[in-house]
């Protein structure tokens, strides 16, 4: 028998090693280049469990000074747009957008994210999904990346995950990113906070009763063309809250029924709010009721006074 070449052993070890490395790399999707940054899918859990929801993250890493946009981009720009390519039995839920920052200049207000951001997308797996082969989740992404100038980018990103009929443990490689993403999401406003919105001629006045005085508040509208993005938001602190005057957008020609958006009270306090516009008619009725009550009270007072004088 021919004696084996010791170098061949080394080579074999090397080949196995490289193969293992490649294997490990394929389990974690590589970041795809976009203009002035990268984009990748990250999964919160190690596999997809049929009948359950898995959170997928769209993670943008940008060069210093460059930004991408919120769901409402503000005065210019556009949000990232996804076209999904999914196997049968997999559906996506609505994307969760972290609280944006105001970008731009004094006269042009854009809403978006600098440095890095993770947009969370829930992925629902049907209970009938067969656990035979891993599934590939793919999306074509169109994204506008801007600094002083804007560059449109296109990328196809993909992630392959196994399917198992058991609860999926979280993926420790992505848990920090998901934790950070959750912290930056607007929270639901506490149930005992009361908001109202009145429609004046040129503005909406958002009144909040939240049990404590508020001295700073900024509102980001989810829908375009409702409020003037660049106009200064005038805050009037109140003993138990605040009043915020939001100038209407010049593009708003018809009355709106609700104002939906994110209210930021401090760097780590942002809330998703959805406030119906008080009907002017209702306001009139309540005014009428007040007048009637006042008249009733004054009549009653007179009657009592007359009676006491008898």
């Amino acid at each position, binding site marked *: 028998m021919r004696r084996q070449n010791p170098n061949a052993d080394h080579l074999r070890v090397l080949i196995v090693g490289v193969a293992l490395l490649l294997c490990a790399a394929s389990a974690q999707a590589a970041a795809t280049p976009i203009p002035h940054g990268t984009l990748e899918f990250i999964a919160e859990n190690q596999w997809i469990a049929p009948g359950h929801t898995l959170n997928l993250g769209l993670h943008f890493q940008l060069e210093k000074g460059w930004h991408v946009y919120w769901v409402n981009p503000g005065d*210019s720009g556009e949000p990232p747009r996804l076209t999904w390519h999914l196997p049968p039995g997999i559906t996506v839920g609505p994307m969760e957008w972290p609280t944006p920052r105001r970008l731009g200049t004094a006269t042009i207000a854009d809403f978006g994210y600098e440095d890095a951001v993770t947009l969370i997308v829930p992925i629902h797996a049907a209970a009938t999904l067969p656990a035979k082969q891993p599934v590939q989740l793919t999306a074509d992404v169109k994204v506008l990346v801007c600094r002083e*100038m804007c560059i449109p980018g296109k990328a196809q990103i993909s992630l392959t995950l196994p399917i198992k009929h058991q609860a999926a443990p979280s993926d420790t490689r992505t848990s920090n990113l998901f934790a950070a993403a959750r912290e930056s999401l607007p929270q639901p406003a506490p149930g005992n906070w009361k908001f109202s919105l009145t429609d004046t001629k040129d503005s909406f006045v958002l009144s909040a009763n939240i049990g404590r005085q508020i001295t700073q508040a900024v509102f980001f509208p989810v829908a375009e*063309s409702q409020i003037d993005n660049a106009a200064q938001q005038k805050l009037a602190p109140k003993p138990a809250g605040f009043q915020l005057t939001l100038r209407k957008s*010049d*593009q708003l*020609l018809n009355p709106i029924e609700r104002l939906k958006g994110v209210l930021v009270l401090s760097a780590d306090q942002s809330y998703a709010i959805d406030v119906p516009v008080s009907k002017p008619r209702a306001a009139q009725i309540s005014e009428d009721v007040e007048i009637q009550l006042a008249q009733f009270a004054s009549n009653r007072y007179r009657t009592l006074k007359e009676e006491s004088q008898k």
Partner: protein
Amino acid sequence: MKRTNFYLILAALVLCAGPAMFAAAKVGESAPDFTATASNGKTFRLADYRGKYVVLEWHNNGCPYVGKHYRSGNMQRLQKEWTAKGVVWFTILSSAPGQQGYVTAGEENSYLAKMQAAPTAALLDPTGEIGHLYDAKTSPQMVVINPLGVVIYDGAIDDKPTTDLSDVPGATNYVSLALEQSMAGKQVQTSATRPYGCSVKYGDSSH
């Protein structure tokens, strides 16, 4: 006494008119007048075009949203179609020196020739005065003014806020719609939209 009252009324009127004179253009209101030098060296004043429809097109040759409409030939086609029907078309360049889209008169003339663009004139607005007068936010923001000098449309060029050339053919063009409806004596149905695109690169841009 009478004279004092007169002055008081005059002062009140001036105070009332004050903010309105400086307020940005709004749909349904008079288009603010301006005078500007074009890339061809001629001077144009908006008020001289009463009696005609006027289109204002905010331009920045480096903006990919503007690029979509020029590389597809859409903007040039609109310019040719409407100026042939008597519409005055002003392309307005409000980028400040040093900012994206700022060009000299010569550079703009070369661009117009290369792109076979056909506006009535390309107005140079490096101070951003006209841009601010109309509160122009983006390129390509579009404004349509009727023969009475009233703004009848302000906003996006069409309903596809993207940089994709393939979105041009299927788009609803708001400028053409406004001109068609107004010329037919009808009310402009979509008179204000979000003007999608790149932010106008005014001199006050800071980042």
